[in-house]
């Protein structure tokens, strides 16, 4: 049974990826889970300058979902490249660097910095963070801006280039096409939906930052629809995510057209999700005589 997949030049031994922002840079994760069950890991969204993040409370549980307003807390690209990535390299799992910026120039500078690191297997351009004021999601809401950001990174980075899209748009296919035209080798979808929670006792929004990003099982149907729409609109592979906790969830994304999947909120609840998902996919395939998980990609549209 062959679990390997190739996502725009990035070869993975299995299709399960740690989603950005739910794995940190791995230091804490390895104390609780076994990183080797991942086909690849994606680091926390990293910016040029360090960012302190948003004021607390930063998380709030909703029905089958999680609202977060972390606000891209990270120590900045320099520290990540010098300290976090060399350490993470010891585990022999491909590392995807998720980058976020406020301008084209910054995207280009960041990409150039990561291009110098021998420890990065792919770049994921985050044009979809709902939790930072400037930049972030703005790049992901117009095809032109998405093109610009992708283009800037493409020029400074030769390896596999993934663009991560937001579902908070009228036509995700148009944004996807712009990213591919600008040189994206693969697309990640979806980032979180913008949401809000109110505390009726304090009569205030729960999150310190008022709005946050909704993730988890609640958004799975929306994520599957985005994957379904985008996978048939572009010629590059899609990494599907949004609410994956089990092999069944992962298989739904793969059948909808995802070439690989990422687990975000699921990791927060259970560090062993990657093992469970990978083993479960294997069992499903073996029970049906399916020899390679690749055969299942897009199966629901055939």
């Amino acid at each position, binding site marked *: 049974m062959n679990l390997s997949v190739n996502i725009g030049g990035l070869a993975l031994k299995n299709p399960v990826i740690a989603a950005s*922002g*739910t*794995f*940190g840079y791995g*230091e*804490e*994760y*390895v*104390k*609780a*889970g*076994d990183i080797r069950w991942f086909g690849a890991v994606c680091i*926390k969204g990293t910016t040029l300058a360090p960012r*302190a*993040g948003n*004021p*607390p*409370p*930063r*998380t*709030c*549980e909703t*029905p*089958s*979902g*999680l609202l*977060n307003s*972390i606000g891209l*807390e990270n120590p900045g690209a320099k520290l990540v490249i010098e300290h976090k990535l060399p350490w993470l390299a010891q585990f022999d799992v491909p590392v995807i660097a998720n980058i976020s910026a406020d301008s084209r120039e910054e995207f280009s500078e960041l990409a150039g910095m990561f291009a110098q690191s021998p420890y990065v297997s792919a770049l994921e351009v985050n044009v979809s963070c709902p939790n930072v004021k400037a930049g972030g999601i703005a790049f992901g809401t117009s095809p032109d801006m998405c093109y610009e950001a992708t283009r800037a990174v493409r020029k400074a980075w030769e390896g596999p280039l993934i663009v991560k899209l937001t579902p908070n748009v009228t036509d995700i296919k148009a944004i996807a096409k712009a990213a591919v035209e600008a040189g994206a080798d693969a697309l990640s979808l979806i980032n979180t939906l913008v949401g809000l929670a109110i505390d009726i006792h304090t009569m205030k929004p729960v999150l310190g930052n008022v709005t946050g990003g909704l993730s*988890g*099982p*609640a958004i799975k149907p929306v994520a599957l629809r985005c994957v379904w729409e985008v996978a048939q609109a572009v010629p590059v592979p899609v990494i599907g995510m949004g609410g994956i*906790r089990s092999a069944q969830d992962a298989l739904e994304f793969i059948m909808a057209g995802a070439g690989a999947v990422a687990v975000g*909120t699921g*990791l*927060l*609840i*259970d*560090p*062993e999700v990657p093992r469970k998902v990978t083993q479960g996919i294997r069992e499903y395939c073996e029970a049906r005589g399916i020899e390679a998980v690749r055969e299942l990609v897009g199966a629901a549209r055939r």
Partner: protein
Amino acid sequence: MSAKQIHDVDAVIISLTNIRGNLYTMSLRAPAIAETAKPMQFVNIALGDLSDPLLRRPFSLSGIYPDSGVIGITWAVVGRGTQIMARWQAGESVRVLGPLGNGLDIDELDTSQGLLLVAGGTGLAPMIPLVSRALAKDAEVHIFYGARSADDLLDMGGGCRVHLATEDGSIGFKGLVTGLLEAFLDGGALGDGKPTVISCGPRPMLSAVKRICRRHRLPLLVSLEERMACGYGVCQGCAVPSARGGYHRVCTEGPVFWADRLDQGECTR
């Protein structure tokens, strides 16, 4: 080369008791956790396989028994998750991730001048394993413990000097535990002694303790609660403002902090 220090175990419930009112306690077989856990660490408990409620819930260890491989937690029913837990029964097994957080290593703590513990409500729970380890080191332990009423008090082991306060005066001092603490310290009961103060409870209580300790120049450790998503350090969800700008994660850098490492206003929320 496994770096695993945090275990996700299927723990069988050995006993589950309704102490009184909305207070519950249970003991769980979880050897991997019991063997390495330190006082003031916590665990993150899954509420089932369904996705509502979605997240695990964090609870301090109110019992750590490495020899028998047993841990205890003690909780108040305050919402859906704690309500679900109250309906669990001995014999069932639950998914427990831990031990989590920094906790307090009694051997690294200066107990020569004694310990002065200040707890509010269920904030007593994490103090219980601490007290027994401190007593084993022959430290003198004062414990100031406040609750709304006698009905809201948890049981403590013996061996330390207990100062009780209840808001309704149903037992002990009538008023806030911080009032009792202030009167005690102002009265000079400790002489020149400078015990380490360790406090756990609602944020307004922690703020008052911080103010009192600053006045009396006592070193203060506080144990904080914050909304958590992962509980093991990967999401940055449990931020509290640091004294030096930026944030600490309660689940990893904490839950126990030297009060002066936290932002001034921090204990007030």
